[in-house]
């Protein structure tokens, strides 16, 4: 009995062991599959508090719209997209910590990065190490995708870029310069990396396309400066024909309000690259007519049915107009969903392969399409232009589109000058 008992016991132990072994061989991946089948996890680090919270909120708004549509249509064979949204307060170290947590603890499939520039570089470092698939939807700093030293096979940028904007601004400015006889230029730009880079790139391209353009002075107000009187008087003393500015948000609004008291804009052509954003234009007390602005996001450009439909749908759901960050995030999520559907997977390598060179119809494309350029994995052919302001909607009229072949030409030259290619 004892021995038979022993025998049975031994057999059952063996059985148990083999079952365990079988489970280990086949069962475990099955469990993993079963778990992940519940959702496709997107980790979104973004800015939800502080002075630019509106931008982070608009980014996630745009993503939610596309994701809800994807999930309502049944997801990917029943796998729904789950969004994990975290506030990083625009701090790079916090963004890096959040993304590490997304990857290590939450096991996200994709890091959908909606961070400003400084934090985006921190995010890029983390995803590059981990090999996680990543979309950058808000950083406009060109080197993020142009610099091969920080390139990652699995990172893609869906955002406008400083160098593209500089070409668009400078070619438009040169043309206006010819028309209006602008020779003397001055810059008024916030005193930090972005404000200074923007001015440098703008004047660099401007002096190539218009060798007669002369720079007569610079005004560098502090970021979040409340009073621009001294800058305005500086401009009026230098008497330039035109002013280029990369001021944005509340700072730009204050500058325009205060400058208008001096009649600044009746004698000087003003080129504000960040003016044509709904939050900014609607906040200016009396938006002067005839200021020049780059197109950040407005429903009137491109003036297509698709773009108006996007603006209307966004407005209906959120009671507000989209921002520049919103269209970029909308483009990013659209491409990502397309890649997920095309590959039927969330594998980083497969998604990256599908993404490289992908071309899709889009409300935000210069010709109704956007392209994810394969060589440096950044979006190109987006609607890019400059126009002049009017006090009421549509706020910007006479918008001239920038020719992308010109953009590519200067971009290549710039990349060479930086030693990137």
């Amino acid at each position, binding site marked *: 009995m004892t021995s038979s008992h022993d025998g049975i016991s031994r057999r059952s132990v063996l059985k148990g062991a083999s079952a365990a072994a079988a489970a280990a061989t086949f069962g475990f991946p099955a469990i993993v599959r079963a778990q992940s089948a519940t959702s496709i996890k997107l980790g979104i680090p973004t800015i939800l508090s502080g*002075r630019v919270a509106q931008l982070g909120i608009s980014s996630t708004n745009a993503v939610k719209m596309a994701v809800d549509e994807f999930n309502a249509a049944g997801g990917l064979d029943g796998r729904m997209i789950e969004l994990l949204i975290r506030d990083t307060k625009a701090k790079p170290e916090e963004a890096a910590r959040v993304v590490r947590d997304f990857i290590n603890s939450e096991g996200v499939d994709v890091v959908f990065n909606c961070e400003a520039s400084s934090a985006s570089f921190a995010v890029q470092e983390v995803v590059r190490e981990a090999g996680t698939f990543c979309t950058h939807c808000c950083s406009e700093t060109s080197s993020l995708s142009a610099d091969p030293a920080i390139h990652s096979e699995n990172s893609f940028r869906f955002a406008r870029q400083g160098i593209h904007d500089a070409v668009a601004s400078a070619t438009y400015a040169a043309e206006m310069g010819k028309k209006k006889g602008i020779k003397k230029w001055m810059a008024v730009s916030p005193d930090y990396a972005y404000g200074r880079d923007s001015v440098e790139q703008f004047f660099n391209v401007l002096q190539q396309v218009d060798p007669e353009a002369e720079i007569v002075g610079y005004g560098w107000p502090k970021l979040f400066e409340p009073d621009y009187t001294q800058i305005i*008087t500086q401009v009026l*003393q230098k008497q330039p024909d035109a002013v280029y500015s990369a001021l944005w948000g509340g700072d730009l*609004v*204050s500058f325009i309000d205060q400058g208008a008291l001096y009649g600044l804009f009746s004698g000087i052509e003003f080129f504000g690259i960040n003016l044509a954003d709904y939050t900014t234009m609607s906040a200016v007390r009396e938006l002067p007519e005839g200021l020049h602005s780059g197109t950040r996001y407005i429903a009137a450009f491109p003036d297509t049915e698709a773009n108006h439909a996007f603006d209307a749908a966004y407005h209906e759901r959120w009671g507000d107009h989209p921002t520049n960050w919103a269209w970029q995030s909308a483009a990013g999520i659209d491409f990502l969903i397309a890649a997920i559907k095309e590959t039927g997977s969330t594998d980083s390598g497969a998604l990256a392969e599908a993404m490289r060179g992908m071309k899709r119809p889009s409300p935000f494309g210069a010709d109704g399409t956007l392209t994810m350029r394969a060589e440096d994995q950044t979006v190109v052919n987006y609607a890019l232009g400059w126009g002049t302001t009017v006090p009421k909607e549509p706020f910007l009229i006479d918008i001239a589109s920038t020719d992308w072949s010109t953009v590519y030409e200067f971009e290549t030259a710039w990349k060479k000058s930086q030693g990137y290619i």
Partner: protein
Amino acid sequence: MDLAALGDCLGTSSCLIFQTVGGLKIGLLMFLVASGLTLIFGVLGVINFAHGSFYMLGAYLAWQTMALTDNFYLAVLAAALGVGLFGVLFERGFMSRVYRGDVLVQILLCYAFILILDDLVIIVWGEEFLSSLGIPDAFHRPPLFVGGAIVPVFHLFIIGFSTLVAVALWLFMTRTKWGKITRAAEQNPLMVSALGINTSLLFAGIFALGSLLAGLGGALAASERSISSGMGFSVVLESFIVTVIGGMGSIGGAFVAALLIGMTRSFGAIGFPLFTDGLMFVLMCLVLVLRPQGLMGRSGG
């Protein structure tokens, strides 16, 4: 550094007038806020580091009144009175309990209020900046040309109004009974109390007046500055510099110092465009080294 440009500017009437008016406007707005800070310090001996937040509160209250009534003057009045009232509550409810405490406790209390008020305005008015109030309709006119210089009419109003406030403050301090009591309390609060004067009431009144000036400054500044949480920070720093240069507690000193800084910034922008803020701190350092009690402060103590 562009000393040639500065020399040219000082030599031409148009530039001189232009920069002077700009400097007066910056300086007098600064005076409105700084006078409140220095008044409170002079009598109560505490530095209200939350003063910048009172300025911010003034801007928000003015914006709200403007949104409701569309009347600029009413907005300024409501902001001044509202912040004055808030100042009394703050003084009675919190500050008066730490007058005898450590300076560190006073600073921490003020700091707590800076953070609370910054968050409070976000909760009430949202995170996005608010647009400026705009200027009253009466001032919607092309700028004047004085001696070839552009002078916005509204800036003349700000300059005139702030000067009136300065004069009124001076008359109050030197010509009225309460002004005399206030000055006496600066010298010797115990004696004032012993003479049967209700110092608690006096302190609350002074705090109200100081806060009212901050609210007034905030409302007037909001006529052309966008409004946002945290906007008081740079202002309290500037006010503090004005107070130090002018002499802690001296209203006349604050007036001179604010104008000095306004001019430094205005003309500094021509001569030292990259060092305008630096000049302000150089000025403060010079005063601290050469005349530590400030331009018009009392020595010793």
